C-alpha cells in the first residue's frame, strides 16, 4: 500500500508561516449573490449555496490551490497500488452541530443520500463497486475499475457529508430540517432573514483545536451590482467574492486603503468560457467556419478591455489550472485575414448566425457585442438573440441556437469537468451542461474513456495531450477565456483563501487582525 499521509498538524503549521499570532474573534460580512434557494448542500449545489453551506457542511477531503488533497473529515487516506481501494481514516471526536456524534455510518448514509440527489456525485460514484465501514472511523471504497480523478471528488461541494440521524427514513426534499442545516463544519447556522442576510456563528465544539477564529459570519444579500460596490466602499461588507461586482469597479475598489484582492481560490473550478457552436446545422456545422470564428475573434482584446485584464486566453478545452493541461496544440491567434480565407474556402454564403449571450450582467453583454463586431469584420453577420437565465437554459439545452456563450467548471480533472462536453455519450437533450454542441468523434471518445481509467499519470498525460491536440484542430466550440474572478477583501482579513475552492470552505482558517 502506498500511503499518502498528511496530518492536520502539518497543514496548520504550513499555514501559519510568518509566525504572526492568529487572533480570535470579530465579525465578517460577506456578499452572497444571488441569494441561494436553500442551504442544504446535499440537495442543492448551486454556486451561492456552496459558498455559504461550505462552512456548515464538510467533505472527507479539501484541496489546496495546487489541487493536492488535504485532510478534512478524513485525517488520513490511502489508495491501493492498483487504484482499486480507497481507505479513509476519519477524525475522532467529531460531532454534528446538534451534539450528535459523527461516524462512518454518516458517510455511508451520505453516499446513498447523494446518489439520489447529486448529479455530479452520481457520475463519480458510477465507478464505485461498494462502500464499507469496518469500524466507526474507517471507510473503505472499492472501485469497479481504477478511476484516476476519483481522488478529486471529495470536497464539500462534490460530496457533502450529511447527518444520518436527521435524514434517514424521511422525505429528503421536504424535511423541515432543510431550513436549519446541521453539519460538522466550523460554522453553525443561526438564522436566515430572507432577502437580507444569512447569519452563521462559530462552532465552539469544532474538532480542530483553535479553529475557527472568527465569531460571526454574515452573508449579505444585495441584489444590485452597483449597490454591492457601495456596500464595500462604505465598509458595510468586508469581502466581495469573485463576480460580486462588475469588472470595471474592481480597479476602483482595489485602490482604496486596506483593500486587497486575490485571484486564487478558483483552481478547483477553473471556470472556462466558450461559445457553443452548433455542430449539427447551419454554417457552424462546417469545421472551417468554426476555425474562422477562432481566428476572427480578438480574444486578447476582450480579456484586456471587457474583463479589465483579468483571465487568460485558453489554448483549448482544458484550463491551464486543471491537471493534464498542455499548450502543445494548434494555435488560433487573432488573424482576420486567415478567417476570411477559411470562409472563402468553404464558400460561406453570408447566412447570418444567431448569438445567444449569457444573461449574467453587463460584462457578458459587452462580450457578445465584441464578438459580433469581430465576426462582422470578416463578413459574418451576427444577430444577438437575448434571453433571461431560464430562456438561455431552455434554448441551449434544446439546441435552439447557432452560437451561445457559456462557462463551465472543470473540477480539477479533465475526466470530471471536460470530457462531458465533448464525448458522444453525453449528447443528451434537456441539460445545458453536456455535449450541447453535438460534437461526434468516436476515435476521441475511445481515448477519453481510456484516459479516465488509466492508473498511471504519465500515460494519462499522454492521452490527454493527444485529445487536446485533435480537439483544438476540430474546434467543436470556440474557447474564449479562462475566467478569473478576483476576490476583494480588507487586508486585515488573513488566511481567507487557502484552498482550491477559496471562499467555499476558506472561513475555517480565516482570522481578522485587529
Amino acid at each position: 500500500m502506498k500511503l499518502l499521509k498528511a496530518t492536520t498538524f502539518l497543514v496548520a503549521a504550513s499555514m501559519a508561516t510568518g509566525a504572526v499570532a492568529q487572533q480570535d474573534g470579530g465579525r465578517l460580512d460577506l456578499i452572497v449573490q444571488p441569494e441561494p434557494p436553500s442551504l442544504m448542500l446535499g440537495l442543492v449545489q448551486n454556486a451561492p449555496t456552496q459558498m455559504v453551506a461550505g462552512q456548515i457542511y464538510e467533505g472527507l477531503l479539501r484541496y489546496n490551490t495546487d489541487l493536492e488533497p488535504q485532510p478534512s473529515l478524513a485525517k488520513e487516506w490511502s489508495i491501493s497500488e492498483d487504484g482499486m481501494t480507497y481507505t479513509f481514516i476519519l477524525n475522532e471526536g467529531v460531532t454534528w452541530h446538534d451534539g450528535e456524534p459523527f461516524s462512518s455510518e454518516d458517510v455511508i448514509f451520505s453516499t446513498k443520500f447523494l446518489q439520489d440527489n447529486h448529479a455530479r456525485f452520481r457520475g463519480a460514484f458510477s465507478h464505485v463497486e461498494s462502500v464499507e465501514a469496518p469500524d466507526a472511523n474507517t471507510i473503505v471504497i472499492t472501485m469497479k475499475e481504477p478511476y484516476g480523478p476519483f481522488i478529486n471528488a471529495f470536497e464539500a461541494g462534490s460530496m457533502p457529508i450529511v447527518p444520518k440521524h436527521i435524514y434517514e427514513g424521511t422525505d429528503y426534499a421536504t424535511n423541515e430540517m432543510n431550513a436549519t442545516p446541521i453539519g460538522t463544519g466550523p460554522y453553525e447556522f443561526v438564522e436566515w432573514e430572507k432577502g437580507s442576510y444569512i447569519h452563521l456563528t462559530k462552532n465552539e465544539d469544532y474538532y480542530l483545536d483553535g479553529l475557527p477564529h472568527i465569531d460571526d459570519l454574515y452573508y449579505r444579500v444585495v441584489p444590485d451590482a452597483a449597490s454591492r460596490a457601495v456596500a464595500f466602499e462604505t465598509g458595510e461588507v468586508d469581502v466581495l467574492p469573485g463576480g460580486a461586482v462588475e469588472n470595471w469597479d474592481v480597479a476602483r475598489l482595489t485602490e482604496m486603503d486596506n483593500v486587497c484582492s486575490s485571484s486564487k481560490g478558483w483552481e478547483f473550478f477553473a471556470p472556462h468560457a466558450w461559445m457553443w457552436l452548433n455542430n449539427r446545422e447551419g454554417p457552424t456545422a462546417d469545421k472551417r467556419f468554426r476555425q474562422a470564428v477562432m481566428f476572427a475573434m480578438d480574444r486578447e482584446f476582450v480579456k484586456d478591455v471587457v474583463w479589465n485584464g483579468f483571465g487568460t486566453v485558453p489554448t483549448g478545452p482544458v484550463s491551464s489550472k486543471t491537471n493534464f493541461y498542455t499548450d502543445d496544440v494548434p494555435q488560433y491567434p487573432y488573424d482576420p485575414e486567415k478567417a476570411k480565407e477559411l470562409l472563402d474556402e468553404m464558400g460561406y454564403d453570408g447566412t447570418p448566425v444567431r448569438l445567444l449571450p449569457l444573461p449574467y450582467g453587463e460584462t457578458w453583454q459587452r462580450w457578445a457585442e465584441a464578438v459580433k463586431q469581430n465576426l462582422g469584420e470578416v463578413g459574418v453577420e451576427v444577430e444577438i438573440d437575448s434571453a433571461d437565465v431560464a430562456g438561455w437554459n431552455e434554448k441551449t439545452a434544446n439546441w435552439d441556437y447557432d452560437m451561445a456563450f457559456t462557462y463551465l467548471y472543470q473540477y480539477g480533472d479533465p475526466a470530471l469537468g471536460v470530457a462531458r462536453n465533448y464525448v458522444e455519450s453525453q449528447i443528451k437533450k434537456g441539460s445545458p451542461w453536456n455535449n450541447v454542441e453535438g460534437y461526434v468523434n468516436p476515435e476521441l471518445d475511445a481515448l477519453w474513456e481510456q484516459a479516465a481509467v488509466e492508473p498511471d499519470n504519465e500515460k494519462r498525460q499522454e492521452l490527454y495531450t493527444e485529445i487536446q491536440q485533435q480537439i483544438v484542430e476540430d474546434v467543436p466550440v470556440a474557447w474564449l477565456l479562462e475566467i478569473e474572478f478576483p476576490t476583494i477583501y480588507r487586508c486585515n482579513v488573513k488566511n481567507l483563501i487557502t484552498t482550491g475552492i477559496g471562499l467555499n470552505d476558506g472561513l475555517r482558517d480565516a482570522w481578522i487582525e485587529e
Partner: protein
Amino acid sequence: MAIAGAILSRLLKAAITLLAIAILNFFLVHAAPGDPAAVLAGEAGAADEQMIADLRAQFGLDQPFYVQLARYVGNIVTLDLGYSFRQGQPVLELILERLPATLILTLTAFWISLVAGVALGVAASARVGKFTDTLITGTALLFYATPLYWAALMAVLVFSVQLGWLPGFGYETVGSGFGGLARALDILKHLILPALTLGLFFMAVYMRMTRASMLEVAQQDFVKTARAKGLNPATIRRRHILRNALLPVVTLAGLQAGQLVGGAVLTETVFAWPGIGRLMFESLAARDYNTILGVFLVSAAMVIVFNILTDLVYRLIDPRIGHKA
C-alpha cells in the same frame, strides 16, 4: 344599507375577477420558456437526465397541463397558495415574511407623496404665476422626469457614500441586536432614502394634479358666489375649492395604492430592501411558478381592495356620489 349592499356586490364581483386573473396568470407564467426544474438543474452547473426528471416529478410538472391547472385552481379556491419547491417553504409563508418590509416602504412613500403633493399643489395654485409657483412646479417637473433607478443611485452616492449620513441599503443594521425603540429608529434611518426615492415621483404627480384641479375649480360659479358672500379666501380655498379639487387626486391615489405590493421592485433592488417586489422578480427569473402566482394573486387582490376603498372615499368627500348610485 345601500353601502353595505354595494360593497357586497363589489366583493362578489371581485372574487370572480380574482379567479379569472389567477387562471390567466397561470397560462402566462407557464408560457414563458423554461421551467423551475431546468433552472435548478442549470444552476447546479452539472445535471443528468435523472436529476431533471426527479425534480419535475417532485414539482408535479410531469402531470398533464390541465391536471396542473385544476390542482392550482382547487388550491386557491381553498386559499392555499401552494409550496415553493425552490425555497422549500409554503408560498404564503414566503409572502408574509416579505410583506411587512414592502408595506412599510410603500405606505411611507404613499403618505409622503400624497400629503406633500397636495400641500405643494395648493400652495402653488394659491400663488399661481409667481415665483413660489414656478419654483414648486419646476422642482416637481424635475422629480417627475428623473428615472427612479438613477435617482436612487445618486441618492446613495451623495447621502451614503459622500456624506455618510444615511445607510445606503438594507432594512436594518444587521446583527446589531437592537430591540424595541432602537430597532424602530434604525429601520427608520434605513427607510428614508428608499421611501423618498419612491415617493418623489408620485409627489410630483399629485402636486401637478392638485394644482391644475384647484385652478379649474376656482373658476366655477359657486366659488364666485362664496367670494361675493364675503367669505375669507382661506376658508374658500379649504372648504369650497380643495374639497372639490380632491376627487381626481383620490382617483390617482387609489391607483397608486393598488401598486403598494408590487410597485417597488426597482427601489427594493437598488436599496437591497427585503420586500415582496424582489421576491416576485427573483421567482420569475427562477420560474418558481407557485411563488410568482402567489405574489401576483396578492397584488391583484390589493388592487381590487383599494378600488373598493377608493369608491368609499369618494362618497365621504362628495356625498352626491352615493345618492346617484
